[in-house]
């Protein structure tokens, strides 16, 4: 594989984490414009852990996940009773709060004779674990793929158990859910923690691939994109958001004949798809049919 293909596939993989994160909340009935915040937390957390504190890579990634999940749950707790636009704006508010906070967040320590760590708006340089460990881009791509598979496996477990059903019930009718004895608050906070953890996971991987992160990378746009991926790809299965990323970034590469008009073509295509399938390509009906077919 040439290095260009590797970098495109790595980006698809990393963006999938963010898209799955937004998708989990969509399933639970909440629109989030702010999952990029947990991606950023994962990137900074894991980066600080390996570059400044010199933790092993796996532990650093784990720290990023815990940070994303923990802050996700913490933010969800007061925001839990908000729905629809209110929740969307609250998530946006938190994400922008965090981003502007990172703009003044300085935490530079001397490591091996160099100052390392986040330097406000100048960003955070030298997250060099992959370089120092001698991991080639292809190896790192495989690592990203493996991590993504573990997230898919986790979602599959939830679907096999009761987790996914709980998310969908609360997402569709929280009042009915409560009258079935379900604790809507716990489901919503759990969903937010899960979504935050997944985004943090992706963020940690991203930081160690890019070796450099800065607050400006975590603006509203990637968050809105991530949200759109799930809606385009479909809310039925976890492959929906991944399909959304593939369609977008894949289209970006394959529609190079349309260079300059790519988004005009792609945007129109997406709008047409949504007219025919309002809940995305792989929607719940597709999931039901698929499950019925499997059972046959």
């Amino acid at each position, binding site marked *: 594989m040439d290095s260009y293909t590797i970098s495109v596939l790595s980006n698809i993989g990393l963006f999938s984490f963010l898209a799955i994160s937004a998708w989990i909340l969509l399933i639970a009935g909440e629109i989030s414009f702010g999952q990029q915040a947990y991606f950023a937390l994962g990137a900074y957390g894991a980066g600080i852990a390996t570059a400044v504190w010199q933790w092993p890579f796996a532990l650093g990634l784990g720290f990023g996940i815990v940070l994303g999940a923990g802050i996700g749950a913490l933010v969800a707790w007061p925001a839990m*009773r908000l729905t629809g636009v209110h929740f969307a704006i609250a998530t946006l508010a938190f994400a922008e709060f965090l981003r502007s906070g990172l703009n003044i967040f300085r935490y530079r320590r001397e490591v091996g004779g160099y100052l390392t760590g986040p330097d406000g708006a100048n960003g955070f340089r030298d997250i060099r674990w992959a370089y120092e460990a001698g991991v080639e881009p292809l190896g790192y791509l495989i690592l990203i793929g493996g991590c993504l598979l573990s997230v898919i496996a986790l979602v599959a477990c939830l679907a096999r158990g009761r987790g996914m059903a709980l998310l969908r019930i609360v997402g569709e009718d929280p009042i009915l859910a409560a009258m079935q004895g379900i604790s809507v608050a716990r489901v919503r906070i759990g969903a937010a923690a899960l979504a935050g953890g997944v985004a943090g996971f992706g963020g940690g991987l991203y930081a160690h691939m890019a070796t450099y992160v800065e607050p400006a990378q975590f603006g509203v746009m990637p968050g809105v994109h991530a949200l759109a991926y799930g*809606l385009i790809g479909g809310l039925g299965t976890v492959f929906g958001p991944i399909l959304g990323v593939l369609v977008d970034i894949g289209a970006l590469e394959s529609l190079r004949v349309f260079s300059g008009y790519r988004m005009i073509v792609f945007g129109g295509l997406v*709008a047409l798809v949504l007219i025919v399938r309002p809940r995305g390509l792989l929607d719940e009906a597709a999931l039901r049919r698929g499950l019925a077919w499997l059972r046959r």
Partner: protein
Amino acid sequence: MLLDLVQNTVDGLAVGAAYGLLALGFTLIFGVMRRLNIAFGPSIMIGIFAGAWLHAEWSVGMVPVFLAVLAGAVITAAYVERISFAAIRGDAALASMASSFAIWMQLEEAVARVFPGRTYGFPTFDGMPMIEIGPVLLRPEYLVMLVTAAALVAALQWGLAHTRFGLELRTLADRPEAARVSGVNVARVAFLTFLLAAAIGGIAGFLIAAADGQITPKIGLWATIKGLIAMVIGGLGSLRGALIGGLVLGVVEANAQWFLGAAGREMTTYALLFLALVLLPAGLAGRTEAGARAEAERRL
């Protein structure tokens, strides 16, 4: 210190009036359709670029530029409404939102095609003197913003109360079922509301661009975000609330910018926004009839 506070508040009120107009557009669409049009800001951006282009090509005066902005915004909004809202029927608020996002991407690329640079000039109101009220200075553009916003809200309130379209709009917003039964042409009212919202947004966009003297495609995202925030602060579906929300946002931002700097402004604004949402989910001018529903939500 106190004088700074007053000066900032005056400036903030003016910018806030523009935010309020953006929120007004959002709240009209949201009230009638219960769907979020995140391509609202980008439609305004198209209008502004149409105006800038007209000015650059033929160096026309302010009035033709204004009309071009209005026309650009309204025509784009009509396109968005047809594709992302009218065509997607049923209980599909999410699909409309995603679709309007896709159209947004289209619009941004279209502008990037035609205007490959980053920033463009926009005509300003020249030759108007700075207004002095004691020690406080008021930019003339800001005075125009304030007066326009107040006049527009007054006109809207009157129109909603006294015209047939206004009555239909209110019925559709407050009691959609009743509107359907009583023979209101829902599709038509929704479409016209969309255009009305775009026109208001266009006016806001024109004033903001004329005050700044330059524009970038980023104004699309900016207008969507500021409008949404002001709407939510004020309370969904309330015209007065939209304006109040805009003014509050403007004043807070201006003072935070002055006393805390850019990073401080962002942090304070968003922290306050988060708190406001959690503590006052109905908004500053929230309606009380949502009370029983809100209670049911709280008890989950």
